[in-house]
């Protein structure tokens, strides 16, 4: 399913030159893990192991410029009505160039293709997500299913992340 920029909450906007977002392959995994764990080391996102990324490689998209990975993100399906954006990271010197937005569009598009009605994220940057059509919701309003992953988190239950949610058009 092709979804228009308007539906993605975009308006008029052109992607940064020379940049493309594509599905990840196993060759990207070490770079993805390095990128995610740089931010994880500062407590800004959850760390990922090679094993976790290999086993969920289909969830991941990467942003690439001239063969170099400058960003990554994953869409993980949790249940038949809910998916989560995870591990969204943009390389340090590449931030504020629209790369994160490009990745979010890709992941939201993935959720549309899979037929999911809602996507959420747990984040320290809610204003980034609200810019892309998400709204801030109470964490407790999300189904209990999502806590299956949270209970293994070092921060559980003293979580200080903000839950953001976006409704999608489900067509067939």
């Amino acid at each position, binding site marked *: 399913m092709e979804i228009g920029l308007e539906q993605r909450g975009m308006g008029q906007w052109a992607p940064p030159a020379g940049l493309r977002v594509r599905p990840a*392959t196993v060759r990207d995994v070490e770079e993805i893990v390095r990128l995610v764990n740089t931010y994880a080391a500062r407590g800004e996102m959850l760390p990922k192991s*090679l094993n976790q990324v*290999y*086993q969920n490689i289909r969830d991941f998209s990467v942003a690439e410029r001239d063969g170099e990975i400058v960003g990554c993100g994953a869409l993980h*399906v*949790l249940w038949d009505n809910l998916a989560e954006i995870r591990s969204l990271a943009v390389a340090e010197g590449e931030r504020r160039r629209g790369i994160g937005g490009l990745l979010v569009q890709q992941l939201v598009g993935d959720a549309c*293709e*899979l037929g999911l009605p809602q996507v959420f994220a747990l984040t320290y940057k809610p204003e980034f997500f609200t810019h892309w059509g998400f709204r801030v919701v109470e964490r407790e309003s999300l189904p209990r299913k999502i806590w299956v992953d949270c209970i293994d988190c070092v921060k559980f239950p003293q979580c200080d992340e903000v839950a953001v949610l976006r409704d999608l058009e489900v067509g067939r």
Partner: protein
Amino acid sequence: MIRRPRIQDVPQMLAIINARAARGEILPRSQNYLCQNIRDFYVAEEGGRVAACGALHVLWSDLGEVRALASEPWAGPAVEGQIVRALLDEGRRLGLERIFAFTYFAEFFVDLGFAIVERESLPRVAWRECIDCVKFPAACDETTVCVELRKT
């Protein structure tokens, strides 16, 4: 038509997989497993219905496993083979080197280019699902099949 599943296909996929599992031919799968691993799957659609499904689960940088391969009794006999071929193409696109399966139907896989190998020839990461199996390790009676993607 071989295509990616949508989440709305999960109930049909569950029924197909668990009917085959009830015959003891493959492992049963939960709705949770199908939802969380939906992106591993291909389905075959015939007449607007899901006729077959199968998954390629990536285990490590070089290794993938065919899982949850099953079809409806009314589906054409070639449909599972079509699913496996799609999964092999997917493995190549992902950059994998080899794909294995544990199966009671080795000849089916040999016809698709797999070779029968010793279970112990696979890296330990391949045993991830085995350790929870009631038959592990002594009573395992499945055959291990493996295909090198560069040779096919």
